[in-house]
């Protein structure tokens, strides 16, 4: 399996040794390069995801989606981005200017922040703390703030209603999300994301296999809660266009709206990516304990595994989104507090019991 840390180490030595830079200079240059890479990766993925969503949703709906701009509509999203960039940005009269401008940045910051935690390959995790899982949940909570501030600052009744809904919903679902993550921590004994993935290499070592029943349930709960956390259907009532026009971003135009749009899709990717990392082994290839097969699987680079698995989860979430009607706000809360919360607590207990008695599934 290719270890990306070889590249990063070589580059670090290049800066320090060959170019003779000190700690500050080397880390600065590295940070800039990594930051750029993340932002570019973010933008590219957003474009891919938006295009994918348009095509997938079209196919579910007996349509063919965009086909005019570029071959098979491939340039459609670029055209849309261009349009959004050159649109006028206007502020609503009597809006709270500072908060109004601040809100999209909070949302996009939270989104990029969580995005940086994803382990792309062996040795290619950008942010990799020993309390990684905690930090992910902490940073993702900033997004709620952005949504809430946007709704409040817009000076629009629909937006306020939507912001209230969004805040209530996202804060509630963070609980299930967090508990599912903790159950994974119990199983792997680490909070470091690279450690969690590392624990999933080897035959049948993905957490969903290792932790069998509780992990499978955890994966499902995580997907549902994550979908709600990303504000996507059937939980998209914060931007329920048939009730609240566009909800909290009704009053945003141009790139202000663009940020919300980007963040929405990237949150989808981040949620799928986290689900992949925690439950489906991240970049770890599927190994079944037969040497020839495992070697072949290991030959495929980790990033392909990671992206492949993540896009499968993304497709799953899109399938759900484009099938179900939207819930009402009290029903969303009922679902969380009456069904998902107890279930995730049960998962937590089950997982602890499994780990304590060594009932996990391991071939070693």
């Amino acid at each position, binding site marked *: 399996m290719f270890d990306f840390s070889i590249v990063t180490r070589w580059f670090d030595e290049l800066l320090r040794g060959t170019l003779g830079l000190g700690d500050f200079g080397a880390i600065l240059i590295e940070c800039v390069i990594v930051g750029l890479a993340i932002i570019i990766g973010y933008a590219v993925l957003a474009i891919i995801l938006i295009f994918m969503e348009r095509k997938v949703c079209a196919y*579910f*709906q*007996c*349509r*063919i989606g965009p086909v005019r701009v570029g071959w098979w509509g491939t340039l459609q999203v670029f055209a849309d981005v261009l349009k959004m960039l050159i649109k006028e940005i206007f502020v609503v009269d009597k809006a709270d200017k500072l908060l109004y401008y601040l809100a999209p940045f909070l949302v996009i910051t939270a989104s990029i922040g969580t995005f940086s935690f994803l382990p792309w390959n062996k040795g290619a995790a950008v942010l990799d703390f020993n309390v990684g899982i905690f930090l992910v949940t902490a940073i993702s909570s900033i997004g709620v703030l952005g949504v809430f501030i946007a709704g409040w600052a817009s000076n629009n009744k629909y937006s306020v209603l939507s912001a209230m809904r969004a805040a209530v919903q996202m804060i509630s679902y963070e609980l299930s999300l967090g508990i599912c993550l903790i159950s994974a921590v119990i199983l792997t004994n680490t909070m470091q994301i690279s450690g969690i993935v590392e624990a999933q290499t080897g035959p049948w070592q993905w957490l969903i296999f290792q932790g069998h029943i509780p992990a499978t349930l955890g994966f499902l709960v995580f997907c549902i809660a994550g979908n709600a956390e990303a504000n996507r259907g059937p939980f998209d009532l914060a931007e329920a266009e048939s009730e609240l026009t566009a909800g909290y971003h009704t009053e945003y135009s141009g790139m202000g709206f663009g940020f919300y749009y980007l963040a929405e899709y990237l949150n989808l990717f981040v949620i799928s990516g986290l689900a992949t990392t925690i439950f489906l082994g991240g970049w770890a290839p599927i190994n079944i304990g037969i040497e020839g097969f495992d070697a072949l699987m290991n030959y495929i680079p980790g990033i392909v595994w990671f992206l492949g698995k993540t896009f499968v989860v993304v497709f799953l979430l899109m*399938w*759900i989104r484009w*099938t*179900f009607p939207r819930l009402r706000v009290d029903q969303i809360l009922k679902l969380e507090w009456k*069904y998902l919360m107890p279930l995730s607590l049960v998962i937590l207990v089950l997982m602890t019991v499994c780990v304590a008695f060594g009932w996990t599934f391991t071939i070693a």
Partner: protein
Amino acid sequence: MENKESYFGEIGSAFKTLATGLKTTMKEYFTPKSTEQYPENRKTTLHVAQRHRGRLVFKRDESENYNCVACLMCEKACPNGTIRITSEMRTDPETGKKKRALLNYQYDMGDCMFCQLCVNACNFDAIEFTNDFENAVFDRSQLVIHLNEEVYKGGSLPNIIDGGADWQVGTFNTKTK
């Protein structure tokens, strides 16, 4: 609901309906699509009903003569004042009879609401609606048409007068060729 299901029974039946929904959408994911690609298919697979009311035209025989005698019935029938007819009395040099002759038949398509009352009112079978629907222009004045001056020879599309491509209930002409 009278027979309250148990907590778990409720969840079970709920999941069943959700699964049915997911199954249906997945089935549709692979069924033929319904998008007809209009500008691309306009000369190939487009079907337009023959009776569709696209615009008003004069009926003409082989030698391009029309039947209109400027009786003004259509002008009076029109609720919107779409039709303006000017005519004069002419004396036939052979028979010496006076006869009304059409000078100008002005039809303003921009005002027309395609109600077919003019066609119903006509006693001489002089006008009809065709299904030629591509009437968009950049200037409203171009929508004012003088039917007596224009010799209508079918619209912008071939075969459109006969309805264009074939069509069947339950299918869409999704191909463009």
